[in-house]
């Protein structure tokens, strides 16, 4: 068996307490899991389960109090490290809940932003950006500013902005939570279609069980704080998945029930 692309071992997180006060409770304690290359992993957790904190630590915008994060077998982050490296030197992409588009840039400029910053803004990069824009149906909106786009369009832009520079691992923090049901289904389909094109490794956090099942190869259920992995579920459905009719798939209800019971 090959080495997993990303492995989290005994991760622990506690926010620092003020001087003289009691120590804060553990947000995450003894959390371990791994992701294989090309896998679409979904994480489900109730609110307050430290999902965002977990992703923040993997993305290295927040420091771990304990435990290790390994990338392709190398210990990238040991706890107690003094320096954070956001994005793990571009190995980890992060699609956050807020689209965080730069309001003063047009769609195309927002998508090209990572390439610009990394010094990789060449014809190949531009072509790749154009392809992605077309793939999510934003053709014709290249010169629009974020305030002129709908919420769903901004989400798409935020998504392909992360995809454009091909990070090996992509984290997603409930990216579709803030849009309406129709748009969400559309976005989920777009995501899967894009994923099929490149088969990146994705860690997708959600509170929506149906979404976790529809999108993932494997689902991990998180506990409430102090958060750890409660259980692991293999999703038996073949790809390509039909997101709109996922509810009608045979066996869906059972998987759904099994997971829902866990969360109660």
């Amino acid at each position, binding site marked *: 068996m090959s080495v997993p692309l990303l492995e989290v071992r005994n991760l622990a997180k506690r926010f*620092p*307490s003020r*001087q003289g006060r009691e120590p804060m409770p553990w947000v995450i304690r003894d959390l371990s899991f791994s992701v294989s290359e090309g896998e679409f992993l979904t994480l489900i957790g109730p609110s307050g389960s430290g999902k965002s904190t977990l992703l923040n630590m993997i993305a290295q*915008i*927040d*420091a771990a109090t304990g435990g290790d994060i390994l990338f392709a077998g190398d210990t990238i982050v040991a706890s107690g490290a*003094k*320096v*954070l*490296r*956001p994005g793990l030197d571009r190995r980890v992409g992060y699609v956050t809940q807020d689209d965080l588009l730069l309001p003063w840039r047009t769609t195309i400029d927002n998508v090209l932003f990572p390439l610009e910053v990394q010094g990789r803004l060449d014809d190949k990069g531009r072509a790749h950006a154009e392809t992605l824009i077309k793939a999510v149906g934003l053709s014709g909106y290249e010169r629009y500013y974020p305030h002129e786009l709908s919420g769903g369009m901004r989400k798409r832009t935020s998504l392909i902005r992360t995809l454009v520079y091909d990070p090996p691992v992509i984290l997603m923090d409930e990216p579709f939570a803030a849009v309406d049901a129709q748009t969400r289904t559309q976005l989920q389909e777009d995501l899967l279609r894009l994923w099929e094109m490149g088969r990146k490794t994705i860690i997708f956090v959600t509170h929506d069980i149906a979404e976790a099942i529809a999108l993932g190869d494997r689902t991990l259920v998180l506990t409430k704080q102090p958060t750890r992995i409660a259980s692991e579920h293999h999703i038996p459905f073949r790809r390509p998945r039909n997101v709109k009719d996922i509810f009608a798939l045979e066996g869906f209800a059972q998987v759904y029930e099994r997971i829902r019971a866990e969360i109660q």
Partner: protein
Amino acid sequence: MTIAEQIIAAPTGPLISRRMTILLGRCFFAALLVLGWQWGANAFGAIFFAPPLAVVERLYEMAISGEMFWDVWQTLRVSAIGFVIAVVLGLSVPFALRLSPRITEAVEPYILWSQGIPKYALAPWLILWFGIGDTPKIVIVVTMTFYIIFYNTLAGIRAVDRRLVNMARIMGARESVVAREVIWKSLQPFFYAGLKIAAPHAVGATIVGEFLVSTQGIGYYIEHARELSDTVGVFAGIVIATAVVLVINAIVVKMERVALAWRPLDRDMGR
């Protein structure tokens, strides 16, 4: 340090607490300014830089003779009158405009354009009309301060939750009641923010007005000293002016805190 490193370093405290550092830094900077002042006096001569000690002496003399208090009183008196008139106008005009969107639209550009008139430039003409006295200064103060109250009241009216207004109207409240209960109450933070800015402004406008309408007051003292090349006097006058403005500012801030103490949310408007 990068932001990331700052985050990690946060739990451990530094050797001197941050508050101490800031306090020391401020004292140091203030000392630097005073030393610079003294150096300026030595380097450029007393014509340009009155020596700090001489200024202190003069302030003492002015305080003893009562001249300081007389000038300050004159300035404050005029500022107060102008301020009150400006507040009355600044409050009533937006409420009046509220009643007729059509008139508001028609008048809007003229209100905006009138702001462009350099108000102090009216001083010579006002002197011709009213002579040298309080009236030109009061007019100037009113014209300067009016806009501040006006625009803050405007912002306050705009920020009123329209649903509350509609609810009051549905319940059958008359316009005047709507104005009083809903709008005025919601308006208060903005109004006090405006007062906070306008009060020191009124004093400042009076002082500058006194440059142009020379009779009495702090501004008169400063300008008069300049005409006599009395540098010490100029510096002393500026010190007094600064002190008065800062005190007025502090008073208004205190008043705002008291008046808005009932608000549960500490929404700090117009800090």
